[in-house]
């Protein structure tokens, strides 16, 4: 029996960026690791605190209100180099809504003001009057799809779907640079900008998206994928133990049906 694995999580700005039930994402990773005997440490890093590039396997960066986003944005510039180095070293990062926006090149507000981001994602966001507020269902990008299938442990080799379901609430429209891959294709909802059917972004093991809900509890395949990738950094190829995800998939299915049935 191999020695117990440990996953070190960094929750970025949990005190300021916690608007839409983002706690559920941390809870999902924590529990899904502990149910498998994997130790988890969660470190909260906020404004004014130092970050080191090698301490964490997985970063989580949630959404916040505009005003706090400005405070966080300023501080994030000081963490830019370290965070980029961590991603270059194959650390995993999940960013949602406000967090996703701050990791892009810039955010241009409706009044034309430019809020600088750290440009981890080659993308930018423009404020708009459109409220993109609804359930959001996406088909995961084809490169990730196989990887997710390969890494999700099931007892009967059947993965119900690789789609992701969540709830989006943003007015900023995000546009991806030429070489940046989206996380997936919009089936129902607006996604990045409501125009090009893309949703989210993937750069190395860094993911950005507009999916709240919370995202990870009812998308267990994606949660396990992030856990696997984060563990691989230090433990090499990892095969997770299957869990009983019946309620997770029922929630996924119910939310998906609800999304498909509403206009």
């Amino acid at each position, binding site marked *: 029996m191999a020695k117990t694995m440990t996953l070190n999580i960094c929750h970025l700005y949990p005190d300021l960026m916690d608007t*839409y039930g983002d706690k*559920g994402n941390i809870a999902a990773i924590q529990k899904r690791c502990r149910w498998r005997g994997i130790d988890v440490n969660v470190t909260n890093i906020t404004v004014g605190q130092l970050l080191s590039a090698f301490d964490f396997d997985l970063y989580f960066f949630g959404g916040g209100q505009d005003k706090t986003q400005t*405070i966080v944005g300023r501080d994030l510039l000081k963490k830019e180099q370290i965070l980029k180095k961590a991603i270059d070293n194959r650390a995993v990062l999940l960013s949602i809504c406000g967090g996703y926006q701050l990791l892009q090149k810039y955010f241009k507000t409706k009044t034309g003001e430019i809020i600088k981001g750290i440009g981890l994602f080659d993308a930018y966001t423009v404020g708009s009057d459109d409220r993109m*507020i609804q359930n959001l269902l996406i088909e995961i990008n084809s490169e990730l799809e196989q990887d997710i299938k390969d890494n999700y442990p099931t007892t009967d080799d059947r993965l119900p779907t690789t789609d992701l379901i969540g*709830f989006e609430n943003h007015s900023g429209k995000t546009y991806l640079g030429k070489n940046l891959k989206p996380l997936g294709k919009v089936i129902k909802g607006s996604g990045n900008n409501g125009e090009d059917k893309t949703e989210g972004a993937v750069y190395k093991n860094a993911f950005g998206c507009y999916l*709240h809900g919370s995202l990870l509890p009812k998308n267990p395949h994606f949660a396990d994928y992030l856990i696997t990738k984060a563990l691989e950094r230090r433990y090499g190829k990892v095969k997770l133990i299957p869990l009983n995800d019946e309620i997770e998939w029922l929630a996924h299915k*119910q939310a998906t049906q609800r999304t498909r049935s509403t206009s």
Partner: protein
Amino acid sequence: MDLKLFLAILAGKSLAFVIRLFSGGATAAPGLIALKIDPDLVRKLNRKIKLGSVIVSGTNGKTTTARLTYDVLSIKYKVIHNRQGSNLLRGIASTLISNSSIFGKLKFDLAIWEVDEATLPESIKNVYPQTIVLLNLFRDQLDRYGEVDSTRTRWQKALKTLPKNTTLILNCDDPGISILEKSFAGKKIFFGVSDNQVKLPAVAIVADVKHCLVCSAGLIFTAQLSAHLGHYRCSKCNFKRPTPDISATNLMFKPDFSTSISLSSSGLTSTVNYSLPGLYNVYNVLAATAVSSRYNIDFLKVKNKIGEFSAAFGRFQKTKIKSRKLVTFLIKNPAGANEVIRTISKLSKINLLVILNDKIPDGRDVSWVWDTDWEILKDKVDNVFISGIRRFDMALRLKYAGFKLSKNNIYKEVNYSIVNTLQKLSTKDTLIVLPTYTALLDVQKTLNRAGEKVSKWQKQ
């Protein structure tokens, strides 16, 4: 005579009559049609009210506060209130129409308007309030209202337009509310809880205000009573909690969900016992008391009225079906739900039924259940049952909170969930039901269907 107004009232009254014939709900419909005929109806009629109107707004506690305020003001005045909870402009129009003669002559001297936080600025323009009560601002249905900061900014703009003879009644424990005094030069009355702690279990705090709204420095809380409500001051500038004019101390929450507080108003202090649970209702009682002081109503009479009060149907309600006790609490956002959870967590061996819907009045986004601290109930709950449109999201939340779930206890249908759950309990048990807004309507239907078997437990 104002022909337009006359026709609008006539149309509204006729429609209301027809609706009554078919015993339908739709309380906003007469107002809606009347406003189509005379868009100025609300303005015209409000201008005629002898003592003007009182607006009550905020995320949590509007309905209960408006009802309490109605009761205490009725001690002295003839009051109306948009009681049906239809708190958009059309609801106000409906209430005005049914309380005026066909020629627009009013049958009352004072109006209480319970107003949605999103429509407060529009309401201020239309009802010429003499008094505005602002209770709190929490994250709530972000899919409908957008973020808390932007709601506050809209309020600030609207308050700046108020005439100086208006009175603003503010919760001084909410820094996001007390800051509003800076947007208004006239008379202000503050209310708050002066105890440094409350005798309720702690919950994971979801605070929407952590920074000074003047200078953005961190706020220091010497007492954090609920979410971002408490005793605070800025770490840098001179922004701090104002001293309350109306205050409560010695808060005692009893196992039968009644409460006792020492209530102070204009130099008088008295112990008040009333049958509403939780810290959140203390604020509602304080707000109503503050309004009563503004309208010079005898404190002792106010105190007695509060003691007699019972909550709006379903928001908090004790009933009995087939000799099994049922206690219902409406849940709708993290701050409110957390306070309900704290209140019921004083019990043990709880039988819990949670009903989560995601229709527009509930909020389409159910992610708020992850901001709610179900964890503190985990060891207090014996049996947990789940229903509602998004029952599996709720089940998942409770699974991750460490509850033991059985798939047999997850029900599609609300009525069935209640009836079946009760069958599984003994007559000694109490079932705690936590529905979201539209689920509450289903719960009420079930209770009504149980007909005469439902008796008011609290009156026995």
